[in-house]
């Protein structure tokens, strides 16, 4: 019900439901499906009045959200060396200072599928990559990619550890594979043992 309301009136600021009324039987946790409907209560009567302020809908209705700009890789690589980056992140990795929010305290759940939905940043706390448009995940941008690889073992860090959304984590893994394919990653390879008897020239070949 809430969803169809949003899509039909786009210029109206829709408030989050401030309270959800449940019937008393719903307060105990039970595995039985609830037949009780939830009712949402809005605290202000102004919701149907069109909102013409600058902060209507998204914050950046006319210019477009600057966080969603398409930044080329080369500029991203320059950014990693710049003063702005140093000021923002210092010596820490881009994900180290990020604090993730969990829904209802469910700390076991994976990170969200995508921070950017329908061309907008769809939440208030985007992941470390999505929040900074100058961090472009690319196999050439090794300085960024190497932050998502363990310093000690060379393992790729999980999205749970780094807090990135699933979409960005997939991109990171793909670009890491590309970099590995091009030999740009500093990782070691398993030892190959040779059975010399299988490679030694046989007596037949020495004429």
């Amino acid at each position: 019900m809430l969803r169809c309301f949003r899509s039909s009136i786009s210029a109206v600021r829709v408030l989050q439901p401030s309270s959800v009324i449940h019937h008393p039987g719903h307060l105990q946790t039970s595995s039985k499906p609830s037949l009780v409907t939830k009712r949402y209560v809005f605290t202000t009567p102004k919701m149907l009045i069109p909102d013409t302020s600058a902060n209507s809908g998204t914050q950046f209705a006319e210019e477009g959200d600057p966080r969603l700009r398409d930044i080329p890789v080369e500029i991203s690589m320059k950014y990693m060396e710049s003063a702005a980056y140093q000021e923002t992140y210092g010596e820490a990795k881009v994900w180290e200072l990020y604090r993730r929010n969990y829904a209802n305290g469910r700390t076991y759940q994976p990170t969200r599928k995508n921070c950017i939905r329908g061309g907008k940043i769809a939440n208030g706390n985007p992941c470390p990559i999505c929040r900074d448009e100058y961090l472009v995940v690319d196999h050439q941008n090794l300085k960024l990619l190497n932050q998502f690889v363990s310093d000690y073992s060379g393992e790729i860090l999980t999205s749970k550890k780094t807090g990135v959304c699933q979409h960005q984590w997939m991109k990171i893994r793909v670009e890491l594979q590309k970099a590995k394919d091009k030999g740009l990653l500093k990782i070691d390879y398993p030892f190959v043992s040779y059975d010399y008897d299988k490679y030694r020239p046989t007596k037949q070949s020495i004429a």
Partner: protein
Amino acid sequence: MWRSLFNGIRVSQWRGSHIASNRWSSHSAVHPEPPPPSSRPTKASLFFAQEVQKELTFLTGLDFERVFRKAKAGQAITAPQYRFVTDAELAKMYEEAKQKAHARLQMPPVMDERLPSNRLLEHDVGIAGYSAARIVFTDITFGVHDRERLVVVREPDGRLREAEGEERDRVNQIYFPKEGRKLASPVLFEPENLETVLRITLEEITSQPEGYTRLLDHNCLQFEPDHPTFIQTAETVYDHINAHAQYDALHSTRHFGPMVFHLVWNCRCDDLLVHFLEKDKVEEVESLLNLYSRFHPESATASASTELSGPDRLRVFIEKDAKKGPKIHSVLEKMSEKMKQNNTESSP
């Protein structure tokens, strides 16, 4: 019984008995090497010779810190263990560590590029047109070495031939995959990308001393030693190291021996000789000249090796065989001057 020969492909009865025959069961799938040219031995026959192996092992050196370095392999690591042991136990553990180190310093075989034997096993005209595609039959019996596995191909025109080269590699990787090896060769091994990586490796050599080793390890993992790309990549890396005198980058690794082999085989060992001289490694110089004599039995150094040794043989090498004779000579001069200075300083 014959079903085990075919990789799950149902072959109709009228051909079954034909294939089940032991006509080629004793056949070895190892490709025969071509006969060597008149006087010069093949790379492989030299590499696997005991004396050559001994010299190359000596030149490689053994540095525990290097051999057992912390490798970032992308797998979970365990914390180090600390133990209290007696002297006897310590000596035993040291010997075991030495054995393990020698195993890790096993040199990847140096061989010539594999040549197709183009051996036709059978040409059955009656089968022609049975299929629009080639059919590959693989013997997936467990325990058979990749190089001895029976892999044959039936062409659409009825020829039955051995699978060779990339076909064999691909089939082996499909049924018995090696961890880390890709079916499609990584773009790294293309000449332009290799050049880029070599350039970066050289730039970062002080912060990343294992750059060359990683590259060569990747090469070993991806290709067989007689694959043309393996040889091409390895030789490019060795030449790069030689051009920039970065021999320490491979010292006490499994690739030092093959690098020395390549340089001596192609008469490009002058800079390496200078490197050893500058470090006062006289025994290494001797070893290098021994190898040179063995690889080039018709050279002046080889004939001098029967009578002369040490500085006399080196002099012959500088005058007759070296490409950069003057450079080695000047280094020797500097060394002798330095020795004279030390002697005059030490004696009052």
